[in-house]
Protein backbone atom coordinates (compact mmCIF):
# COMPACT_ATOMS: atom_id res chain seq x y z
CA UNK A 1 0.00 0.00 0.00
CA UNK A 2 1.62 3.34 -1.01
CA UNK A 3 2.20 5.97 1.68
CA UNK A 4 0.54 9.40 1.65
CA UNK A 5 3.83 11.00 0.55
CA UNK A 6 3.97 8.74 -2.49
CA UNK A 7 0.58 9.97 -3.60
CA UNK A 8 1.57 13.61 -3.12
CA UNK A 9 4.47 13.12 -5.52
CA UNK A 10 2.29 11.64 -8.28
CA UNK A 11 0.61 13.72 -11.02
CA UNK A 12 -3.16 13.92 -11.56
CA UNK A 13 -3.23 11.42 -14.42
CA UNK A 14 -1.52 8.77 -12.35
CA UNK A 15 -3.83 9.40 -9.39
CA UNK A 16 -6.90 9.24 -11.63
CA UNK A 17 -5.73 5.91 -13.04
CA UNK A 18 -5.29 4.54 -9.52
CA UNK A 19 -8.66 5.91 -8.38
CA UNK A 20 -10.34 4.26 -11.36
CA UNK A 21 -9.03 0.94 -9.99
CA UNK A 22 -10.76 1.72 -6.68
CA UNK A 23 -7.80 3.29 -4.85
CA UNK A 24 -9.55 5.67 -2.50
CA UNK A 25 -6.30 7.08 -1.07
CA UNK A 26 -5.37 8.26 -4.56
CA UNK A 27 -8.77 9.89 -4.86
CA UNK A 28 -8.29 11.57 -1.49
CA UNK A 29 -5.05 13.09 -2.78
CA UNK A 30 -6.94 14.50 -5.78
CA UNK A 31 -9.53 15.97 -3.41
CA UNK A 32 -6.82 17.54 -1.23
CA UNK A 33 -5.11 18.96 -4.28
CA UNK A 34 -8.12 20.61 -5.94
CA UNK A 35 -10.68 21.13 -3.17
CA UNK A 36 -9.92 24.86 -2.69
CA UNK A 37 -10.38 25.68 -6.37
CA UNK A 38 -13.66 23.78 -6.58
CA UNK A 39 -14.97 25.28 -3.38
CA UNK A 40 -14.02 28.78 -4.59
CA UNK A 41 -15.89 28.20 -7.85
CA UNK A 42 -18.98 26.94 -6.02
CA UNK A 43 -18.79 29.93 -3.66
CA UNK A 44 -18.50 32.34 -6.61
CA UNK A 45 -21.80 31.00 -7.86
CA UNK A 46 -23.90 30.49 -4.73
CA UNK A 47 -22.25 33.03 -2.37
CA UNK A 48 -22.92 30.89 0.68
CA UNK A 49 -20.22 29.06 2.63
CA UNK A 50 -22.24 26.02 3.73
CA UNK A 51 -23.92 25.54 0.36
CA UNK A 52 -20.57 25.86 -1.39
CA UNK A 53 -19.03 23.20 0.87
CA UNK A 54 -21.98 20.83 0.35
CA UNK A 55 -22.01 21.33 -3.41
CA UNK A 56 -18.26 20.85 -3.78
CA UNK A 57 -18.42 17.66 -1.70
CA UNK A 58 -21.35 16.41 -3.76
CA UNK A 59 -19.24 17.04 -6.85
CA UNK A 60 -16.46 14.82 -5.48
CA UNK A 61 -18.91 12.00 -4.69
CA UNK A 62 -20.34 12.28 -8.20
CA UNK A 63 -16.84 12.31 -9.67
CA UNK A 64 -15.96 9.06 -7.87
CA UNK A 65 -19.05 7.42 -9.32
CA UNK A 66 -18.41 8.72 -12.84
CA UNK A 67 -14.65 8.36 -12.86
CA UNK A 68 -14.90 5.69 -15.52
CA UNK A 69 -16.38 8.28 -17.88
CA UNK A 70 -13.35 10.57 -17.58
CA UNK A 71 -11.29 9.87 -20.66
CA UNK A 72 -8.67 12.56 -20.14
CA UNK A 73 -9.76 14.80 -23.06
CA UNK A 74 -9.40 17.74 -20.69
CA UNK A 75 -7.52 18.12 -17.41
CA UNK A 76 -8.99 16.45 -14.35
CA UNK A 77 -9.56 19.88 -12.76
CA UNK A 78 -11.49 21.10 -15.82
CA UNK A 79 -13.64 17.98 -15.69
CA UNK A 80 -14.26 18.45 -11.96
CA UNK A 81 -15.06 22.15 -12.41
CA UNK A 82 -17.68 21.22 -14.98
CA UNK A 83 -19.32 18.87 -12.49
CA UNK A 84 -19.40 21.44 -9.69
CA UNK A 85 -20.76 24.14 -12.01
CA UNK A 86 -23.57 21.87 -13.19
CA UNK A 87 -24.46 21.06 -9.59
CA UNK A 88 -24.47 24.78 -8.73
CA UNK A 89 -26.69 25.56 -11.72
CA UNK A 90 -29.15 22.83 -10.65
CA UNK A 91 -29.05 24.13 -7.10
CA UNK A 92 -29.77 27.70 -8.20
CA UNK A 93 -32.60 26.51 -10.44
CA UNK A 94 -34.20 24.65 -7.53
CA UNK A 95 -34.02 27.66 -5.25
CA UNK A 96 -37.25 29.53 -4.82
CA UNK A 97 -37.57 32.58 -7.02
CA UNK A 98 -39.14 35.66 -5.42
CA UNK A 99 -42.84 35.90 -6.21
CA UNK A 100 -42.58 39.57 -7.08
CA UNK A 101 -39.60 41.46 -8.46
CA UNK A 102 -38.70 44.98 -7.43
CA UNK A 103 -38.70 47.62 -10.16
CA UNK A 104 -34.91 47.55 -10.14
CA UNK A 105 -34.82 43.76 -10.49
CA UNK A 106 -37.36 43.94 -13.29
CA UNK A 107 -35.20 46.50 -15.08
CA UNK A 108 -32.21 44.24 -14.65
CA UNK A 109 -34.01 41.26 -16.10
CA UNK A 110 -35.38 43.14 -19.08
CA UNK A 111 -32.01 44.79 -19.62
CA UNK A 112 -32.86 48.47 -19.80
CA UNK A 113 -31.22 50.00 -16.78
CA UNK A 114 -27.62 49.47 -17.90
CA UNK A 115 -28.02 51.98 -20.73
CA UNK A 116 -28.67 54.76 -18.24
CA UNK A 117 -25.55 54.05 -16.18
CA UNK A 118 -22.76 56.56 -16.90
CA UNK A 119 -19.67 55.08 -18.50
CA UNK A 120 -16.78 54.73 -16.05
CA UNK A 121 -14.01 56.48 -17.95
CA UNK A 122 -11.17 56.05 -15.44
CA UNK A 123 -10.19 52.49 -14.64
CA UNK A 124 -10.81 52.25 -10.85
CA UNK A 125 -8.74 49.08 -10.61
CA UNK A 126 -5.55 50.78 -11.78
CA UNK A 127 -2.75 50.76 -9.22
CA UNK A 128 -4.42 48.18 -6.99
CA UNK A 129 -2.46 45.24 -5.69
CA UNK A 130 -3.59 41.84 -6.92
CA UNK A 131 -5.04 41.02 -3.50
CA UNK A 132 -6.90 44.35 -3.27
CA UNK A 133 -8.28 43.94 -6.78
CA UNK A 134 -9.50 40.44 -6.03
CA UNK A 135 -11.17 41.53 -2.82
CA UNK A 136 -12.96 44.41 -4.54
CA UNK A 137 -14.13 42.25 -7.40
CA UNK A 138 -15.37 39.69 -4.91
CA UNK A 139 -17.30 42.38 -3.01
CA UNK A 140 -18.83 43.67 -6.22
CA UNK A 141 -19.69 40.16 -7.44
CA UNK A 142 -21.53 39.59 -4.17
CA UNK A 143 -23.83 42.50 -4.99
CA UNK A 144 -24.99 41.05 -8.31
CA UNK A 145 -28.02 38.79 -8.71
CA UNK A 146 -27.42 35.04 -9.13
CA UNK A 147 -28.31 35.20 -12.82
CA UNK A 148 -25.85 37.99 -13.58
CA UNK A 149 -23.08 36.53 -11.45
CA UNK A 150 -23.49 33.10 -13.07
CA UNK A 151 -23.15 34.55 -16.57
CA UNK A 152 -19.98 36.37 -15.52
CA UNK A 153 -18.47 33.28 -13.89
CA UNK A 154 -19.23 31.10 -16.91
CA UNK A 155 -17.92 33.64 -19.40
CA UNK A 156 -14.97 35.26 -17.65
CA UNK A 157 -13.72 32.51 -15.36
CA UNK A 158 -14.69 29.45 -17.38
CA UNK A 159 -14.20 31.05 -20.80
CA UNK A 160 -17.44 29.64 -22.23
CA UNK A 161 -18.99 31.05 -25.40
CA UNK A 162 -22.46 32.65 -25.41
CA UNK A 163 -24.00 29.56 -27.03
CA UNK A 164 -22.63 27.20 -24.39
CA UNK A 165 -23.71 29.51 -21.54
CA UNK A 166 -27.25 29.68 -22.98
CA UNK A 167 -27.35 25.89 -23.13
CA UNK A 168 -26.12 25.47 -19.57
CA UNK A 169 -28.44 28.13 -18.15
CA UNK A 170 -31.44 27.11 -20.23
CA UNK A 171 -32.04 30.55 -21.74
CA UNK A 172 -31.61 32.29 -25.09
CA UNK A 173 -28.34 33.71 -26.41
CA UNK A 174 -30.01 37.14 -26.37
CA UNK A 175 -30.65 36.78 -22.64
CA UNK A 176 -27.05 35.75 -22.05
CA UNK A 177 -25.80 38.82 -23.96
CA UNK A 178 -28.12 41.14 -22.11
CA UNK A 179 -27.28 39.68 -18.67
CA UNK A 180 -23.57 39.75 -19.40
CA UNK A 181 -23.75 43.36 -20.51
CA UNK A 182 -25.69 44.38 -17.43
CA UNK A 183 -23.36 42.43 -15.12
CA UNK A 184 -20.24 44.05 -16.57
CA UNK A 185 -21.65 47.56 -16.47
CA UNK A 186 -22.92 47.11 -12.93
CA UNK A 187 -19.58 45.68 -11.89
CA UNK A 188 -17.80 48.71 -13.37
CA UNK A 189 -20.11 51.05 -11.46
CA UNK A 190 -19.64 49.11 -8.21
CA UNK A 191 -15.85 49.14 -8.55
CA UNK A 192 -15.93 52.90 -9.22
CA UNK A 193 -18.11 53.38 -6.10
CA UNK A 194 -15.70 51.35 -4.01
CA UNK A 195 -12.81 53.50 -5.16
CA UNK A 196 -14.71 56.70 -4.34
CA UNK A 197 -15.54 55.37 -0.87
CA UNK A 198 -11.87 54.60 -0.33
CA UNK A 199 -10.77 58.08 -1.39
CA UNK A 200 -13.23 59.84 0.97
Amino acid at each position, binding site marked *: MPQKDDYAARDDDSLVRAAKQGDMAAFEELVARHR*DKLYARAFSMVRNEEEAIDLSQEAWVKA*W*QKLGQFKGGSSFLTWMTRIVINLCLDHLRKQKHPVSLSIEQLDEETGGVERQMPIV*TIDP*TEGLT*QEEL*RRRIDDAMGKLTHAHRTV*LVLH*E*FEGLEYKEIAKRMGCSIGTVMSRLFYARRRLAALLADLQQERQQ
Partner: protein
Amino acid sequence: MKQEDVIKIQAWLDGELAGSEAESVERLIAQDADARALVAELRWTKSALVRGELERPVPESREFYWSKIERAIRATETARQAVLDRPWVGLVLRWFAPAGIVAALALFLVLPILRQSRQQPWVAGAEIESPLSDVGSITFRSEAEGMTVVWVNTH
Protein backbone atom coordinates in the same frame (compact mmCIF):
# COMPACT_ATOMS: atom_id res chain seq x y z
CA MET B 1 -26.37 54.45 -29.03
CA LYS B 2 -29.09 51.90 -29.57
CA GLN B 3 -29.38 48.86 -27.31
CA GLU B 4 -28.70 46.65 -30.31
CA ASP B 5 -25.43 48.50 -30.97
CA VAL B 6 -24.11 48.26 -27.42
CA ILE B 7 -24.83 44.53 -27.31
CA LYS B 8 -23.03 44.12 -30.64
CA ILE B 9 -20.04 46.04 -29.32
CA GLN B 10 -19.82 43.64 -26.41
CA ALA B 11 -20.16 40.62 -28.72
CA TRP B 12 -17.37 42.04 -30.91
CA LEU B 13 -15.15 42.47 -27.86
CA ASP B 14 -15.83 38.86 -26.83
CA GLY B 15 -14.88 37.60 -30.27
CA GLU B 16 -18.41 36.45 -31.02
CA LEU B 17 -18.81 38.47 -34.24
CA ALA B 18 -17.23 37.79 -37.59
CA GLY B 19 -17.26 39.12 -41.16
CA SER B 20 -19.52 42.01 -42.05
CA GLU B 21 -21.02 42.27 -38.56
CA ALA B 22 -17.60 42.73 -37.00
CA GLU B 23 -16.67 45.30 -39.66
CA SER B 24 -19.84 47.31 -39.02
CA VAL B 25 -19.07 47.42 -35.27
CA GLU B 26 -15.49 48.51 -36.00
CA ARG B 27 -16.84 51.36 -38.15
CA LEU B 28 -19.20 52.41 -35.35
CA ILE B 29 -16.35 52.44 -32.82
CA ALA B 30 -14.21 54.55 -35.14
CA GLN B 31 -16.98 57.13 -35.64
CA ASP B 32 -18.63 57.31 -32.20
CA ALA B 33 -16.86 58.61 -29.05
CA ASP B 34 -19.47 56.99 -26.75
CA ALA B 35 -18.86 53.65 -28.41
CA ARG B 36 -15.13 54.04 -27.82
CA ALA B 37 -15.68 54.92 -24.14
CA LEU B 38 -17.91 51.88 -23.75
CA VAL B 39 -15.28 49.64 -25.33
CA ALA B 40 -12.66 51.02 -22.89
CA GLU B 41 -14.93 50.33 -19.91
CA LEU B 42 -15.79 46.81 -21.05
CA ARG B 43 -12.10 46.11 -21.69
CA TRP B 44 -10.88 47.05 -18.24
CA THR B 45 -13.80 45.24 -16.57
CA LYS B 46 -12.94 42.14 -18.54
CA SER B 47 -9.23 42.27 -17.72
CA ALA B 48 -9.92 43.00 -14.04
CA LEU B 49 -12.14 39.91 -13.85
CA VAL B 50 -9.54 37.70 -15.49
CA ARG B 51 -6.93 38.77 -12.92
CA GLY B 52 -9.28 39.06 -10.03
CA GLU B 53 -10.79 35.79 -8.88
CA LEU B 54 -10.30 35.58 -5.14
CA GLU B 55 -8.53 32.51 -3.80
CA ARG B 56 -10.81 30.97 -1.23
CA PRO B 57 -9.64 27.98 0.80
CA VAL B 58 -12.19 25.51 2.15
CA PRO B 59 -12.97 26.56 5.74
CA GLU B 60 -12.63 22.95 6.96
CA SER B 61 -9.63 20.76 7.69
CA ARG B 62 -8.48 18.30 5.04
CA GLU B 63 -9.50 15.31 7.21
CA PHE B 64 -12.97 16.61 8.09
CA TYR B 65 -13.77 17.67 4.54
CA TRP B 66 -12.63 14.29 3.19
CA SER B 67 -14.45 12.30 5.89
CA LYS B 68 -17.82 13.55 4.68
CA ILE B 69 -17.00 12.68 1.07
CA GLU B 70 -15.72 9.25 2.07
CA ARG B 71 -18.84 8.53 4.12
CA ALA B 72 -21.11 9.47 1.21
CA ILE B 73 -19.08 7.37 -1.23
CA ARG B 74 -19.17 4.33 1.08
CA ALA B 75 -22.95 4.74 1.60
CA THR B 76 -23.62 4.77 -2.15
CA GLU B 77 -21.24 1.84 -2.68
CA THR B 78 -23.03 -0.17 0.02
CA ALA B 79 -26.40 0.54 -1.56
CA ARG B 80 -25.06 -0.45 -4.98
CA GLN B 81 -23.53 -3.61 -3.59
CA ALA B 82 -26.85 -4.55 -1.98
CA VAL B 83 -28.52 -4.34 -5.37
CA LEU B 84 -25.73 -6.39 -6.95
CA ASP B 85 -26.01 -9.05 -4.23
CA ARG B 86 -29.77 -9.30 -4.66
CA PRO B 87 -30.53 -8.57 -8.32
CA TRP B 88 -34.26 -9.05 -7.75
CA VAL B 89 -34.27 -5.89 -5.59
CA GLY B 90 -33.09 -3.90 -8.58
CA LEU B 91 -35.70 -5.58 -10.76
CA VAL B 92 -38.46 -4.72 -8.30
CA LEU B 93 -37.31 -1.12 -8.01
CA ARG B 94 -36.90 -0.72 -11.75
CA TRP B 95 -40.07 -2.37 -13.04
CA PHE B 96 -42.57 -3.35 -10.39
CA ALA B 97 -42.53 -0.16 -8.34
CA PRO B 98 -43.42 2.08 -11.32
CA ALA B 99 -45.95 -0.51 -12.51
CA GLY B 100 -47.57 -0.48 -9.06
CA ILE B 101 -47.82 3.31 -9.12
CA VAL B 102 -49.39 3.27 -12.59
CA ALA B 103 -51.90 0.60 -11.50
CA ALA B 104 -52.89 2.59 -8.39
CA LEU B 105 -53.29 5.74 -10.46
CA ALA B 106 -55.43 3.93 -13.03
CA LEU B 107 -57.64 2.51 -10.26
CA PHE B 108 -58.05 5.95 -8.73
CA LEU B 109 -59.13 7.44 -12.06
CA VAL B 110 -61.33 4.60 -13.27
CA LEU B 111 -63.22 3.82 -10.04
CA PRO B 112 -65.41 6.97 -10.02
CA ILE B 113 -66.32 6.43 -13.68
CA LEU B 114 -67.39 2.86 -12.95
CA ARG B 115 -69.49 3.97 -10.00
CA GLN B 116 -71.18 6.71 -12.04
CA SER B 117 -71.94 4.28 -14.84
CA ARG B 118 -73.82 2.12 -12.33
CA GLN B 119 -75.76 5.27 -11.27
CA GLN B 120 -74.59 5.00 -7.74
CA PRO B 121 -73.96 8.38 -6.19
CA TRP B 122 -70.34 8.70 -5.26
CA VAL B 123 -69.81 10.68 -2.09
CA ALA B 124 -66.99 12.87 -3.32
CA GLY B 125 -68.85 13.77 -6.50
CA ALA B 126 -72.37 14.24 -5.03
CA GLU B 127 -73.77 17.62 -4.03
CA ILE B 128 -74.50 17.84 -0.31
CA GLU B 129 -77.79 19.60 0.47
CA SER B 130 -78.31 21.08 3.89
CA PRO B 131 -81.87 21.39 5.28
CA LEU B 132 -80.60 23.88 7.84
CA SER B 133 -80.31 26.88 5.52
CA ASP B 134 -81.56 29.38 8.12
CA VAL B 135 -79.42 28.10 10.95
CA GLY B 136 -76.72 30.46 12.23
CA SER B 137 -73.70 29.61 14.32
CA ILE B 138 -71.05 31.44 16.34
CA THR B 139 -67.72 29.79 17.09
CA PHE B 140 -65.49 30.74 19.99
CA ARG B 141 -62.00 29.31 20.35
CA SER B 142 -59.88 29.78 23.46
CA GLU B 143 -56.23 28.91 22.86
CA ALA B 144 -55.45 29.29 26.58
CA GLU B 145 -58.15 26.81 27.59
CA GLY B 146 -57.62 24.61 24.58
CA MET B 147 -61.39 24.70 24.02
CA THR B 148 -63.76 25.49 21.16
CA VAL B 149 -67.43 26.41 21.75
CA VAL B 150 -69.91 26.38 18.86
CA TRP B 151 -73.22 28.09 19.53
CA VAL B 152 -75.95 27.07 17.11
CA ASN B 153 -78.93 29.42 16.68
CA THR B 154 -81.97 27.80 15.07
CA HIS B 155 -84.27 30.86 15.23
